[in-house]
């Protein structure tokens, strides 16, 4: 049978007239995309470890999580133009002829399919998570985590399979292909434009260019956006008999006035959300370690924090001793000089350095040893 009969449409020789479907462009774009992916993966794993409470959990640097998670979303968004340009460049390879040249070639193509599928879905779910939009039937966090490993493995496989091509085109050989420099510059400029118009949600001096970031400090009670409102959490009305319960070898129940009568400290700390936005504020309240000392909790005790929220994954959080004993970790009663707004966790919330926002428990009810 003549297989050439099937060689039609995009499978034709010369079906893609652009000169830019060529290996050197693919190698340059691949380097950029690969770098963004490595940054995104590393910062994502840091975030995962902090949220899971596994591995070393240092409470410094203060802005550590703000920087890593900001970079996670910045590099993830940068991957959108990079992935688009890379896949466009190699698109004719999808229709190469013959489609399969043997077992190894088939496996390599299967690996590429897996890499592309995992990366597309990974970037798509990440982008939609920044606007809290979940149109799919699976859980975001677990899927995003495991897909990241799948994509990383696919990249290693791809780098191995394509090593000769990558080595051959690592440096430019021969004359410049007309239009290539302009094309690569356009892709780089697009990454710059995407970053410029979104990174203001985490980089303060880019705030004025924030056209597409999902949060802005100009919107939100007390100049600070929130991830979950008091209404969403069912904590608009605080029970009249609210007391903070601290349990240890001893136990105390403190009113808001009791807390205000204790030594107050002010710290400038960021709220840094897993969705990639972050803003700093002046928080005032009681040092967490003073409260733990009050009930005789040992220095190395991890703490469980429970909120008034009735439901939700982050109703409780666990805090390692490294955070609980940090002098900057507060049970905050005020933000920017005013009593906390209900959306920020009135009457009291946790705020600690280098910690994901979802773990900065609001509307705190109980502190106890883990």
């Amino acid at each position, binding site marked *: 049978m003549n297989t050439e009969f099937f060689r039609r449409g995009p499978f034709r020789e010369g079906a893609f007239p652009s000169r830019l479907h060529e290996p050197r462009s693919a190698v340059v774009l691949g380097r950029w995309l690969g770098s963004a992916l490595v940054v995104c993966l590393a910062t994502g794993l840091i975030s995962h470890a902090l949220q899971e409470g596994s591995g070393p959990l240092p409470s410094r640097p203060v802005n550590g999580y703000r920087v890593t998670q900001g970079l996670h979303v910045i590099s993830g968004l940068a991957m959108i133009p990079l992935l688009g340009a890379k896949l466009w460049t190699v698109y004719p390879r999808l229709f190469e002829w013959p489609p399969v040249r043997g077992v190894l070639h088939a496996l390599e193509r299967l690996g590429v399919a897996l890499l592309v*599928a995992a990366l597309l879905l990974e970037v798509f779910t990440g982008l939609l998570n920044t606007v809290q939009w979940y149109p799919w039937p699976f859980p975001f966090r677990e899927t995003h985590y495991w897909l990241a490993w799948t994509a990383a*493995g696919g990249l290693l496989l791809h780098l191995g399979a394509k090593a000769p091509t990558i080595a051959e085109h690592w440096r430019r050989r021969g004359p410049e292909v007309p239009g290539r420099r302009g094309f690569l510059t356009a892709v780089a400029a697009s990454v710059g*434009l995407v970053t410029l118009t979104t990174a203001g949600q985490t980089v303060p001096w880019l705030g004025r260019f924030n056209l597409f970031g999902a949060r802005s400090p100009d919107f939100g009670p007390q100049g600070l956006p929130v991830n979950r409102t008091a209404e969403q959490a069912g904590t608009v009305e605080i029970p009249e008999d609210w007391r903070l319960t601290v349990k240890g070898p001893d136990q105390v129940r403190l009113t808001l006035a009791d807390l205000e009568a204790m030594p107050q400290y002010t710290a400038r700390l960021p709220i840094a959300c897993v969705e990639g936005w972050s803003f700093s504020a002046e928080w005032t309240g009681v040092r967490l370690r003073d409260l733990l000392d009050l009930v005789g909790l040992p220095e190395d005790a991890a703490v469980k924090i429970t909120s008034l929220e009735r439901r939700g994954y982050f109703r409780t959080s666990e805090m390692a001793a490294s955070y609980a004993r940090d002098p900057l970790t507060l049970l905050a009663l005020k933000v920017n000089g005013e009593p906390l707004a209900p959306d920020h966790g009135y009457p009291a919330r946790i705020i600690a350095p280098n910690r994901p926002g979802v773990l900065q428990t609001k509307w705190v009810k109980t502190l106890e040893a883990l």
Partner: protein
Amino acid sequence: MRAYRVSMVLAGVCVIAFGLHGLVNDPQIAEPADILVWALSAVVVHDGLWLPLACLGGALLARSTAPRFVLIAAASVTAVALPAVLREDADHGNPTLLPLSYQHHLLLLLGACAAVAGAAWTVERLRRRRSARGEDEVSSRRRPSRRSR
């Protein structure tokens, strides 16, 4: 080279197996098949719908550097902004989420892209016309000398 390639491929296969094993066995993921369906759909939409359109648009509109430049930038920003634009009017119960006028911002930016593309196109045309006229002058000056020869 061979050792490098073999170790990269082996490491890649192991990491892929780790990721897929996690996807299939994570207790929070009830139906791993859903993820497969969404991943395949992503490929079909991207490679079967978006890329043919991008190739067609590129072939028709982006033959020189300036319009190509602007189209790439416009497509990138649109892709990144689209979820915010689509969800801007949704009631998600949190007024601090998506507080900006994303639709206006996107229109503004795309308008700016169109203006830049238009300006670049005009400059390119003018330059081409001027260089064409320049060549005319050169050739008309040459002609008599050829005749005199």
